[in-house]
């Protein structure tokens, strides 16, 4: 006992508890198991299975280590199968008292997640991966709030296990513990691409917005959000309330709203700061290629697109869609086809496909200037950008085109900036996190290999750009990309396929699958990966009045004033130009 006395008093308490067999938190004893399959724990007689739940944390003190684990299964057992086949007479209270928990008892399956260990009394405890398991008959206790807090990191700024600076952001509570905050290491969250998965209506958008607020508040990265359904920037919709605050309302001075559909944004009073336009001159075949699946381009048509771009250079699209131009130059499509060496039907079909771009009002020369540059200016000035799609959000083609168009160019600039810094950290750009909803459309196997989003996911943080993938169909995402996703926050999923996809490349997946399959259909998430020390199930933090207040939003009346001020500021001030 004495050799454990030190300043980490709760750990001492824990040890003391176990040594002195404090029964109040004890659940049972380890009776079997293995490192790969997890531990079998026989419950003590008085433990009621009804009171336990998968996802709950337990600690097991063994020797000079404390194992941290999660309950991943619960089952019934008996000392003799005969007790199951011919049950004792349970109408007799005496029989019930004697048998329950003795001849028939409960057991739980525990997956060891990490182990707290220290070299000597003078050292700090540190959390390490599990490389062994506790011995037979080690006592298993429910973890206390302090232990959970210790393992996940206290909310706010701190250091991680490797001594690096870390911002721990409160994302929710354990399922059956009161007043315990589970945190996520934001620095690690943005360091690699991350994902929020869950079927529709589970709370993906709410949770993503909450995470983005955390990133903004803690200044760990700068965000670019492709806000397909207009939920991130200004008032979002909610099932439980008339409306919820958008990021710009919480951080008026730090968030800029761009819109693709000025009219819709104004109608929603979101007061966009800029309207994004794309000059038809600037569209390249690469920007269109990833829409092939959506607008139904065939291989030959894609080939023809590149041929056109080679022949006409910048402005190929405009020229190709311009009947007058084609008539004047070639006397019709036939002549053009002959010169390009492309079948006429291919060109005709391609024109029909690309014709939809005419309906996109944002493809125009009459814009406020180069939108890519505008966005880059903001990002460089550490302003977060939310791009609202307005009515185009319901047009998958438009969404993919714009997101792909902008991201390709922004990424290119980040590559340039990073390379120019020659490894000098201070000269490198701030980490950029790009949030995409319906992410599988960008990352499905057919397109992931040759689109910018696949590239970003694969190259990790080499160029300081990572993705926040928000999606309801993880099985649609290229496995290679999936294996690069550092942190996976998963709300309820229905399909087996999707559940399997989430655990791609995760050890101990079969047990976690049980946990995931049992999440409530809303506001419960399994978080695993880079930003948490061990997989964790949380009731997600609510994105509500309290949260907004904690993010610095004060009251309804003060808000419009602040919003106006910052817009004015924004327009008045010319942020530092790049290069």
């Amino acid at each position, binding site marked *: 006992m004495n050799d454990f006395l030190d300043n980490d008093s709760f750990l001492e308490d824990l040890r003391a508890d176990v040594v002195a067999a404090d029964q109040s938190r004890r659940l049972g004893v380890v009776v079997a198991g293995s490192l790969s399959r997890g531990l079998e724990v026989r419950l003590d007689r008085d433990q009621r299975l009804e009171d336990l739940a998968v996802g709950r944390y337990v600690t097991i003190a063994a020797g000079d280590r404390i194992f941290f684990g999660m309950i991943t299964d619960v089952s019934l057992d008996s000392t*003799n199968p005969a007790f199951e086949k011919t049950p*004792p007479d349970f109408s007799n209270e*005496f029989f019930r008292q004697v048998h329950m928990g003795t001849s028939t008892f409960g057991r739980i399956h525990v997956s060891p997640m990490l182990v707290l260990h220290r070299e000597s009394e003078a050292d700090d405890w540190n959390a390490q991966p599990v490389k062994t398991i506790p011995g037979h008959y080690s006592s298993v206790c429910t973890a206390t709030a302090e232990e959970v807090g210790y393992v996940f990191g206290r909310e706010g700024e701190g250091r991680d296990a490797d001594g690096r600076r870390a911002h721990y952001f409160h994302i929710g509570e354990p399922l059956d513990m009161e007043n315990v905050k589970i945190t996520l290491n934001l620095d690690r969250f943005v360091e690699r691409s991350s994902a929020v998965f869950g079927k529709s209506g589970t709370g993906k958008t709410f949770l993503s917005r909450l995470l983005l607020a955390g990133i903004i508040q803690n200044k760990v990265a700068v965000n670019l959000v492709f806000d397909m359904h207009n939920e991130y920037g200004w008032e979002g919709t909610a099932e439980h309330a008339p409306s919820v605050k958008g990021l710009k309302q919480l951080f008026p001075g730090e968030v800029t709203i761009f819109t693709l559909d000025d009219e819709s944004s104004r109608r929603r009073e979101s007061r966009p700061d800029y309207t994004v336009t794309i000059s038809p001159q600037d569209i390249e075949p690469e920007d269109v290629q990833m829409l092939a699946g959506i607008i139904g381009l065939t291989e030959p048509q894609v080939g023809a697109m590149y041929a056109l771009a080679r022949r006409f250079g910048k402005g190929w699209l405009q020229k190709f869609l311009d009947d007058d131009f084609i008539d004047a130059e070639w006397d019709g499509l036939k002549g053009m086809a002959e010169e390009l060496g492309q079948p006429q039907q291919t060109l005709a079909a391609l024109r029909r496909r690309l014709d939809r771009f005419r309906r996109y009002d944002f493809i125009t020369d009459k814009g406020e200037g180069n939108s890519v540059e505008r966005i880059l200016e903001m990002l460089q000035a550490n302003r977060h950008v939310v791009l609202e799609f307005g009515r185009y959000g319901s047009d998958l083609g438009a969404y993919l085109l714009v997101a792909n168009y902008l991201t390709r160019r922004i990424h290119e600039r980040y590559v340039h900036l990073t390379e120019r810094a020659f490894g000098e950290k201070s000269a490198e750009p701030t980490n950029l996190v790009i949030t995409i909803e319906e992410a599988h459309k960008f990352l499905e196997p057919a397109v992931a290999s040759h689109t910018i989003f696949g590239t970003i996911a694969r190259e990790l943080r080499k160029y300081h750009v990572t993705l926040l993938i928000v999606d309801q169909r993880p099985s649609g995402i290229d496995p290679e990309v999936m294996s690069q996703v550092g942190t996976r926050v998963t709300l309820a999923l229905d399909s087996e396929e999707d559940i399997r996809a989430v655990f791609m490349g995760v050890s101990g997946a079969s047990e976690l699958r049980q946990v995931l399959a049992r999440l409530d259909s809303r506001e419960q998430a399994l978080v695993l990966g880079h930003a948490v020390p061990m997989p964790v199930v949380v009731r997600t933090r609510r994105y509500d009045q309290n949260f907004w207040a904690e993010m610095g939003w004060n009251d309804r009346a003060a808000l419009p004033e602040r919003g106006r001020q910052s817009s004015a500021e924004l327009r008045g001030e010319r942020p530092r130009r790049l290069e």
Partner: protein
Amino acid sequence: MNDTSPLFGRTLRTGTLTFTFGSTLPHSRQPAFGELVRVPAGAGQVYGVVYDVLTQDDPFVRQVIAASDQLEAEKIADMRERRQSPVEITALAVAYREGGHVYQRIPPRPPATLEPVYGCDDEEVREVLQGWDSFRTILNHAQCPAEELLAACIRHAARCQPAERRRQFLVEAGRELTRQLSADPLRLDAILRRLGGDQF
């Protein structure tokens, strides 16, 4: 263990596993089935659980039965009291005391003949039967109705607990049996049925 304990009789025959003593006490004061008794053996004490009480006939009893159809109550009582041969009571040795310790094992040496056999008071019963090691000794004994005997012995031990602990004592004993007899649910059931209920 004290000298005011009732003297039940003296040993007639003894062996490693059991000992039999003769008692001349009236019927109502004889030890009951399942009750714990003590007998000195060398420097220590042997404890046994009573499992057989045998009252032999004798020539006198035969004569009386043969001679008359009608027996006066007075005469019957008199004959019962002044018997020619003692009642033979057999106990299963389950524990012994040596050097102040009680061991729930078969005693190393049986008691000699003509040793006094005493009853035990509540405290002594609690001390000797605490822990449940004697369960196996009783269950393994082939010459006695082991299930009945064990149930009677546990009930006897329960009666020696403070009133408020009695029920819990039975439950705990039941659990220990459940553990020891998990391979034989039928036997377990038979014993538990003889333990259960609030009347013991």
